[in-house]
């Protein structure tokens, strides 16, 4: 969950100042009002933890978060995903790749972002609402955080549909440039109870649907 992506305002349609806020908050807005995460926003200097998800609780909205930690070369990594109704930002999804400089058994609650990591995977996400894609993002470069949000939908918009998280379907891909890191992630997930990740042969890409 992005720190600062909800900012305590009551529900209303985005205004000019909202759009300015989005840019400061680390999002680019396209002509259709879809927000997408920037490659290197200043918020990446913040640590990430479960405390960020308490914002959803405070807003009284819906969200599902999925955490996939693994270890590679003595460091801990996590693929962290969300699908949610992001208040004024509408329904959206995010996938993030974070690390800690310790093995998993020593990993704590705070995860860090490194946008300059040469082994940062290239990630994509696509969010559908009742079978129709509502927002998606496939950046051409690897980014720590890949997310998109549809301001035109969601319960804040009186003209838009009511969005329930259960009607949101998230698809994501993670393509690892480092074959060793890919193998570590694949091995971890394939032996895990309830694994939903797929690993198409001949690639270094993991895919998942929620």
């Amino acid at each position, binding site marked *: 969950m992005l720190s600062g992506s909800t900012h305590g305002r009551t529900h209303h349609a985005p205004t000019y100042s909202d759009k300015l806020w989005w840019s400061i908050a680390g999002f680019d807005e396209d002509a259709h009002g879809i927000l997408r995460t920037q490659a290197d926003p200043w918020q990446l200097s913040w640590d990430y933890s479960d405390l960020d998800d308490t914002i*959803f609780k405070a807003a009284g909205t*819906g969200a599902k978060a999925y955490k996939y930690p*693994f270890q590679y070369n003595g460091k801990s990594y996590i693929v962290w995903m969300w699908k949610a109704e992001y208040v004024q930002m509408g329904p959206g999804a995010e996938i993030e790749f974070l690390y800690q400089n310790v093995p998993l058994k020593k990993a704590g609650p705070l995860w860090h972002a490194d946008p300059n990591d040469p082994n940062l995977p290239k990630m994509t996400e696509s969010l559908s609402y009742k079978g129709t894609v509502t927002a998606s993002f496939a950046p051409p470069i690897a980014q720590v955080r890949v997310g998109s949000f549809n301001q035109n939908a969601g319960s804040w918009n009186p003209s838009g549909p009511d969005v329930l998280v259960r009607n949101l379907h998230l698809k994501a891909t993670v393509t690892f440039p480092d074959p060793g890191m890919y193998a570590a992630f694949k091995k971890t997930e394939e032996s*895990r*109870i*309830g694994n939903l990740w797929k690993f198409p042969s001949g690639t270094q890409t993991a895919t998942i649907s929620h």
Partner: protein
Amino acid sequence: MQHIADAVNRHDPAALKKLFSARALEKATDMDRGLDYFLSVFPSGHMTWKSITTNSVYDLKSSKETEDLLAGYMVFADGKKYSLDFIDFPVNQVDDPKNVGLYALGVAPYSTDPYTAAGVKKPYYVWLDSFASEDGVGTGNPGVYVPPN
């Protein structure tokens, strides 16, 4: 995991059974035999363990929450190594308030290869996969699973 290990160390099937959710106890078939069979894997009653990793799913809906932990461990007992996996719901306000606690618990000799020499998926890995679903329980059978030899 500590609670599971404590029950194993004491060879206490009742203590292990108490860890399961009401829903799991309701739906599981022959839970008591499964518990005895699970404990028989550790005849000396002593185990140590190492966490492989734990996935989690956190579901929030109108201030109610459900957390689903999908945990994998490497367990050491009597000079042997095992895989131990479980699904646990520490809180379950969104989906099923009767499903708080362990839902499924399995143990098998440790292996890094999900397939047999003939290319068939091993029973333990079939069991692991049976829980693959959005709600973390899928079609997998609740209770205890120890694959046949």
